[in-house]
């Protein structure tokens, strides 16, 4: 009878983390920044049908990078969770913090108990009932939650993009300058990104109950050209 080989838990976790990070680094990044009228979410995504950024609830949006089928099933589960909570209780009882915790539980459980971790990084962004209460919860493949107020970047190159974004971001920007700084940060010094390479959406006050709006390529072009 053969004994199963002993592998230390540290090694198992490290291998899984490496695996997940590698998967995430293969895809393009996404970023979200707060601006004067809410939050703008921008993902590098040449597809115009497979979405990385989408609506979750009245004032909440979702962004995911990594393996498409994995973050898309998380997105759908999140929409269901939010809609059920709003139906059972009240629309105002649906909040990003609790959804982010729920996502963190799922990702954490999968990371420790399953053979394969999810190769995703996701974002739950919310504009508060009053202005300047934007919250962004950045959730990693292992269930780690990071909360941000000003901006956050998802993906393999997050660190260098966040560095560039930190240099150009300032509080209370209009949509145009905010979007330009995100796009420049995503592109880096050696590339330029056109509207066709991007997926852009906003959570903005003034959009009514459902604050989420996608921006068409023409709108993105106009904002980038300003």
């Amino acid at each position, binding site marked *: 009878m053969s004994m199963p080989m002993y592998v230390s838990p540290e090694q198992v976790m490290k291998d899984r983390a490496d695996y997940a990070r590698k998967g995430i680094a293969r895809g393009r990044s996404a970023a979200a920044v707060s601006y004067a009228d809410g939050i703008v979410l921008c993902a590098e995504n040449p597809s115009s049908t497979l*979405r990385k950024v*989408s*609506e979750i609830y009245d004032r909440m949006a979702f962004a995911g990078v990594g393996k498409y089928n994995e973050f898309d099933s998380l997105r759908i589960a999140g*929409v*269901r969770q939010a*809609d059920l909570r709003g*139906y059972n209780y009240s629309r105002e009882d649906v909040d990003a913090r609790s959804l982010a915790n729920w996502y963190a539980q799922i990702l954490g459980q999968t990371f420790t108990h399953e053979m394969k971790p999810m190769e995703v990084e996701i974002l739950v962004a919310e504009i508060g009932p009053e202005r300047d209460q934007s919250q962004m919860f950045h959730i990693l493949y292992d269930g780690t939650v990071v909360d941000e107020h000003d901006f956050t970047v998802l993906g393999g190159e997050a660190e260098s993009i966040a560095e560039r974004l930190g240099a150009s971001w300032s509080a209370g920007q209009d949509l145009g300058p905010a979007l330009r700084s995100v796009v420049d940060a995503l592109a880096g010094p050696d590339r330029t990104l056109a509207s066709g390479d991007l997926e852009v959406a906003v959570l903005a006050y003034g959009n009514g109950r459902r604050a989420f709006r996608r921006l068409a390529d023409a709108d993105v072009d106009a904002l980038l050209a300003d």
Partner: protein
Amino acid sequence: MAGDRRATMGHIISHRSIEKVFPADRHSGVAIAGAAGPAMEMVKLFQLQLEHYEKVEGSTLSLDGKANQLSQMVRGHLPIAMQGMAVVPLFAGFDLARKAGRIFQYDVTGGRYEETNFATTGSGGMLASTVIKVGFSEDMTSGAAIDLAIDALFRAADDDSATGGPDLVRGIYPTVATITAEGFERVADSDVASRFASLAERLTTQAPVGAETTDDRGDI
């Protein structure tokens, strides 16, 4: 779409300012008649279903799809309807594919009937539909259509005790909404109030129908 504001419990008026016309989503609306509790629950669930579909799929249901969904909900309600708590909604919306407004009527079994020009539901529905039938023309402007709907509700309230008329003392007026390519939009209460005022003026300058049975003031 227009609806009065009265809820009754037997012969008692249980609520004076209930809403019966709701947006279903951006380009459609739903109006309810029947048992208030189940009807409002049905609207809430219907709105949720449409929004949930839109968010999950990234696109809205077709207008036929929405009408069908509501039909299934009415059919599912049949056992409770048989116990006396029927819900009979109206559904109307702007069909973005056909570029036209469309109206759907239902029965308690979930039967779905598309109407070409107008539809009514509820206890005063027959009365209202007669008024609309007489006054309707295909080329009406939205203002004329609102006036006709208001007239129909007023006449229905005149003869049906479960339909409420305009409440001038409390400032409660029927809910009126238009649905166009731009979406569902409620007509402001002030606009509805002034349309009622001109209707009342028109009616008092004419000899009101049934005036010989009213007292000296000639109130309707």
